[in-house]
Each structure stands twice: as structure tokens, then as C-alpha cells.
């Protein structure tokens, strides 16, 4: 977790809000540092985390997590982290027929499938264990990333349904949080992705949008982060609050500064 980002978002692991959907999106740059931030944030907040990692392997997150101060292997062993490694499971589900439905069952189907098995996996992972006080504060679902599901042949509606079910279970019933990452295709016309992004934007409480700089690549400023707080269920009597910062990613942290105030420029 990045302390500077915590300050900007005005949260700490001890007193984070519950029942929220956070949308991370990136346009023309790589927003995966936000995923690492939230993963380590919620692990430090002693939450039970279900991480659906579709794009990278476990060791990748583990090594970056160690730089940020969390040990994913230990968290997985003591039951705090449930990790679905998409790449490895895809190989399993593709080459051997499974007896019971696998979370990534849609890879075997010819026509567009649905994400019901994946939702059931998430629900089983996060349902509170009655026996034995494990002591986790609240459950969190983390998905990296949803655009991969679109490119694997699922429709935007199927993915939106999945998120709806997850929100109903995790946010409403279990009072937990959901964090998802979606790539924004920008000027490339991708209808399905736009539907997904717009649909999620209207449902989420917090939107973090990492964009590349409009002027192109720069070594000292890697991009711009837009933070938008929303209240989707209540009427918009108060205006949504929005902030913009520029950032530079370093080896172990990310430093944020106001626009134009990069240390390289001053």
C-alpha cells in the first residue's frame, strides 16, 4: 500500500469504509500498481480477501507484495487470502474435462458463456466461516482484470451480471468491498468495453482512473491519476468530488504530486 495514496484517499487500513465498489481503470498506461496497492491495503486491514487474478501469476503479486510489506504466501496459508490464478486454472480446465464446474468453465464452451461458476467460487470463498473465530474484519473481492473476460468471449452483459451478483453478496449482504480493474480502450472503438466501463462507473462509489499524459511519454511523470468520489444510491444533492494528481512509480512506492509540480520540473 502506498502511504501517499492513502492520504489522498483519506483512508487508513483501520478505518476504511465498507460496502463499497471501487472501480480502477487505466487508459493508455498500466494501472496495475493500483491493484497492488489495494491488495496490500486490505491484507493489512485484516480482511478476508478473494483475489481473482486473471492476468498474472501468483509469484508476480507475491514479489511485489513483499516490496509493499505483505506476504501473500503466508496469507494464503492461514486462510486470509483466497487466490484464483487464472492462467494456471485455464490450463487445467482446458486440457482436462472437469467433473464439477470450474470457475473458468466458459473457456471450454463454444458459445458465449456466463460467469455463474465464477460467482459461486467467489461466494464460497468469502462466506463467513461459523466455526472458529478467524477474526477477519470484512470480506473483500479483488478482480484483475475484467477486460480479459471480455476478450475471452464473454459479453459485457454477462460480466455486468457477475459484478451485480458479487455486489449483492459481498457489499450488501456481507458488508464487504469490491475492487475491480477495467482497461479503457480510449479512442479505439470497443463497444463491449465501453458498455462495461459505463455500467460500472454508474455503480461505483470510488473511481480511480490512471491515464497516460496527453503529451506522451515522460520519464519523470508516469501518468495522471483522477480520483472521483460518488454516491450512486443517493440523489446528487452534493456534487461528486474529484481530484487530479500526477504520479511517478518507483521501485517500492508511488509518489504523487499536484499537476506540474513534479520534482523534476521544479
Amino acid at each position, binding site marked *: 500500500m502506498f502511504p501517499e495514496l492513502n492520504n489522498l484517499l483519506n483512508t487508513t487500513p483501520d478505518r476504511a469504509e465498507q460496502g463499497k465498489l471501487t472501480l480502477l481503470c487505466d487508459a493508455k498506461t*498500466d494501472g*496495475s*500498481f493500483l491493484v*497492488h496497492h489495494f491488495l496490500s491495503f486490505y491484507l493489512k486491514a485484516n480482511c478476508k480477501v478473494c483475489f481473482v487474478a486473471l*492476468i*498474472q*501469476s*501468483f*509469484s*508476480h503479486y507475491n*514479489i*511485489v507484495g513483499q*516490496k509493499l510489506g505483505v506476504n501473500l504466501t503466508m496469507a494464503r496459508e492461514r486462510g486470509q487470502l483466497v487466490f484464483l490464478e*487464472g*492462467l*494456471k*486454472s*485455464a*490450463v487445467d480446465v*482446458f*486440457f482436462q474435462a472437469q467433473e464439477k464446474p470450474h470457475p473458468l468453465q466458459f*473457456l*471450454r*464452451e*463454444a458459445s458465449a458463456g456466463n460467469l455463474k461458476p465464477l460467482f459461486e467460487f467467489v461466494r464460497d470463498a468469502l462466506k463467513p466461516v461459523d466455526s472458529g473465530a478467524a477474526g477477519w474484519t470484512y470480506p473483500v473481492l479483488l478482480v484483475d482484470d475484467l*477486460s*480479459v473476460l*471480455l*476478450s*475471452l*468471449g464473454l459479453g459485457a452483459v454477462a460480466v455486468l451480471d457477475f459484478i451485480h451478483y458479487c455486489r449483492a453478496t459481498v457489499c450488501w449482504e456481507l458488508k464487504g468491498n469490491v475492487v475491480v480493474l477495467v*482497461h479503457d*480502450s480510449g479512442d*479505439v*472503438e*470497443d*463497444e463491449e*468495453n465501453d458498455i462495461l466501463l459505463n455500467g460500472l462507473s454508474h455503480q461505483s462509489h470510488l473511481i480511480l482512473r490512471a491515464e497516460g499524459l496527453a503529451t*506522451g*511519454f515522460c*520519464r519523470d511523470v508516469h501518468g495522471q491519476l483522477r480520483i472521483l468520489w460518488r454516491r450512486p444510491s443517493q440523489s446528487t444533492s452534493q456534487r461528486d468530488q474529484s481530484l487530479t494528481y500526477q504520479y511517478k*512509480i*518507483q*521501485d*517500492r512506492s*508511488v509518489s504523487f504530486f499536484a499537476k506540474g509540480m513534479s520534482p523534476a520540473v521544479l
Partner: protein
Amino acid sequence: MATVATCGGDAVGVGSAVATASKSNVTSFQRRGPRVSGTNDSGPRLVSITGTRPSVRNGQLLVSTGLPALDQLLGGGLAVGTVLLIEEDKYNIYSSLLFKYFLAEGIVNGHTLLVASANEDPANILQELPAPLLDNCKKEFDEDVYNHKTPESNIKMKIAWRYQLLPKMEQIRPVSSSRFGHYYDASKRIPQELIEASKWHGFFLPEKISPTLKVEPCSLTHGYIKLLQFIQNIIYEEGFDGSNPQKKQKNILRIGIQNLGSPLWGDDICCTENGDSGHNLTKFLYVLRGLLRTSLSACIITMPTHLIQNKAFIAHVTNLSDTVVGLESFIGSERETNPLYKDYHGLIHIRQIPRLNNLVCDESDVKDLGFKLKRKLFTIEH
């Protein structure tokens, strides 16, 4: 003169060299954070796989792409377990050259190769690989095998060759530092002995599918399924995924897939506007990457993206691959006569570099890169 001294040191040990003339790259680096998660690596071990080295940034194991200039741009090399996607240039001249450099590097380093193609027999592809420019020249290597002179005159001969060798090769850096990547002579063919000494598997699509077979509907095109099963078989049987613990010597599997996505593979993504309704290619890439992540292999794929009309699809493919390099040649375009570009054969675009095991990646500062192909050298310049 430092060059001569180190080369002289190398030459003495090479007197009895056999087919793989390049020395193995045994380093004393410890491999931190290996990609292969399923192996019996409980802690850091000494790396002893030829032709690889750990990245200085994150300890990731790297292999050379065959082009030292490209290796530098990609942050030292191609990471084991990842996919390098090359967007082909319009006439598929330079992308097939890069493809061949990758395979030739595998042969020189003694890696196992897996070549898959739908339009050309893999045996023919291997015949056309460029000849490597080795430290002791190929002619000297032949002479070593045939003459039985005393060691001193051997050394003398080598030193004489050394002097003869120096002006011929256009070296950017001393030869001894390019153990990791080699230079190739694009006009010469690779010597037959090297091909025969290497281990390779070929997948030629027309041989593997019989056209009269009735195909039941399933989630991927038949050709893709066959290729995935083939790759998985090789990985499993030869123990690249660590499943065969009695294999003493670990090796890297280099996979090369040519013209993926072209109509010859049975995919209609290049033909129609809204093709690939079954998302065959993306599913293929996803499962392929899953296979690579759990084994000691690296893959190069060339794809004719200039034929794909659905731009959103290209964005999906880019997101599903690790490293993406685009080639744009000047042949036939108006840039050929542009004085700005007259020294170059084309532009090379590094579209994506993965951030593996790390928050940052080695992006180079320079984004406008042109390449030119000379007989012995493929340089990439700003």
C-alpha cells in the same frame, strides 16, 4: 587490445569444442524469484542454464531474442515464461527475419526448439536460419576438427585468425561481452551440423489436421487446439515444467509460431470485419500464456496485425501478450524516399513491455526507433 586478450583466453578452452561452439553461460548470479512456481526450488540456486541470465532489475530469468539491439530495448532480454508478439510488417520480410534470429539463437545456445507454422514446413524454416558469427570464426571451427597440429600452432593459428577477424566484424562492443546474444550473418545459412545437433520439434498445420475430419464444435479452432495440445505434450514429456525431476540439465524451450491469426490457421479474424466471433485467438493466447508461465519456455509469435480490421481486437491481443513489438518497413511506402529515413529500412515500435515482479519496467527513454539491416548486423537506432 583488451579484446584480443580475452578472446585469446577463450580460444584456449575451445580447442576441443564440438557442435555447440559457444561457451555455456555459467554465471554466479543467484536466481531470485524464479518464474517456474511448480518446481522443487525451495530457495535460490545457482543458475546453470546456457544462454540465460538473470535480469538486473528483478532477478527474472532472461533469454536473448537473437538481436542484441532488441535485447537492450526490452530491458536485457526476453523473460522466460513470457510471450513476445511481433506485429508483422506489410510484406513479412523483417518479422520473419526476427523470427529466424530467435530460433538461431536457440540453436546456438543449445535450447530445444518448437517451430509451428501453417504455411511453411518447419524443416525448411530451420534450413534458412542465418549463420551465427561466433567468436572463433566458422572456418576456424572447421579447421580445428580436421587438423591435428600441436596445441602451440593451434594457438598461433587462432591468433592469426583473431587478427584477420577483427577488421571483418563490425562490432559495437567487444565480443566477449556478447555471450548472451550473438550476431548473425543474414546472407549465410546456418551450418548443417548445428541444426542436426540441436533438438527441435516441428508443427506443420497441414500435416496435423486432415481436411476430411469432421470437427465437433468446440471452443477453439481445430488448428489452435492441436497446437496447444502439441505444445503441452512437449512441455510435459521433456520436463520443462519441472514435472520430471530426474532430468539433470535444465533447458529452455523456445517456441516460435509464425503468422498466427492468418487465414491458414482456420481463423477468420483477418478476413472479415467482425470476425472471430468465437474469440479463438484470444483464448488461444490466454491458454498459451498459462502454459508458458508454468514452464521454462519463451515464445515468439508473429501476427499479421495489419490485416486485422477490428482495432479493438488488436488492443485485446496486446493486453493478453507480455511484450509487443511492431515493425513497419518502408518498402513500398512513401517514406522510402523521405530523406529523413533514407538510412533506415523501417521503424520499430515497442508497444508494450511487461512489468514482471515489479512495479516499474525498463522502458527506454527513446521512442522513435528505426532499424536497418546490414549483412551482418541488425541495428536499431534512435
